[in-house]
């Protein structure tokens, strides 16, 4: 028999996992164990191209920023609509469906170009705390967007509490802002 609140239990389990890793310092062991993976990433053909061919890295980074713009634009428009700040004349459900496609396209561009960029500077980013904060924010953002926000907004949004709508929109904006800001921070570290 399935538990009565599977999604809530999953969220609680993830919060507990994160808290447990931080408190028991298991994350340090995990971090140390990941060093060979990052060293290997730099030796791959993708890593070698990114490291030795500056133009290739610059072009990929440009696409990474375009992906960020696409994802950020979709998030701003969708959450702005949810907050009632813009596009209020457009039906919520229709706008959400259109913007979700843009969001997913931006996310895929970010992930593919991000892996390329990470391979080029793998050992450098391995030692940057901000990189790990970005990964944590990115994982949280993806899980939140696909596992909670999207299914929630596929229901009847108008019947939902306005406070819950605002809370979801605000947290979505905050998490993707953190992903973008920490991402740019890596570039300046």
């Amino acid at each position, binding site marked *: 028999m399935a538990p*009565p*609140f*599977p*999604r*809530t239990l*999953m*969220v*609680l389990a993830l*919060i507990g996992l994160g808290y447990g890793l931080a408190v028991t310092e298991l994350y340090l062991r995990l971090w140390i164990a990941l060093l060979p993976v990052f060293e290997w990433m730099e030796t791959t053909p993708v890593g070698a191209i990114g490291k030795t061919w500056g133009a290739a890295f610059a072009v990929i980074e440009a696409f990474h920023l375009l992906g960020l713009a696409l994802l950020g634009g979709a998030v701003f428009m969708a959450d702005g609509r949810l907050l009632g700040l813009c596009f209020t004349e457009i039906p919520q459900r229709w706008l959400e469906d259109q913007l979700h496609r843009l969001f997913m396209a931006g996310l895929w561009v970010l992930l593919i170009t991000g892996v390329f960029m990470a391979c080029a500077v793998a050992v450098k980013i391995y030692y940057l705390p901000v990189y790990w*904060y970005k990964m944590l924010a990115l994982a*949280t953002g993806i899980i*939140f967007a696909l596992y*909670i*926000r999207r*299914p*929630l907004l596929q*229901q009847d949004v108008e019947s*939902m*509490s306005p406070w*819950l709508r605002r*809370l*979801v929109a*605000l*947290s979505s904006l*905050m*998490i993707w*802002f*953190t992903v973008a800001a920490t991402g740019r921070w890596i570039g300046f570290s």
Partner: protein
Amino acid sequence: MTDLKLSALLASTVIIGGFLVYWFLQIQSVRELLALAYG
């Protein structure tokens, strides 16, 4: 409250709390660095 709404409430609260703590600590550390550098 349904499972989906409860999970959204829980996740949103944790995200907003984490966001506020993280950026508060970052701003605080920059303020301390600036104080060290310029008094």
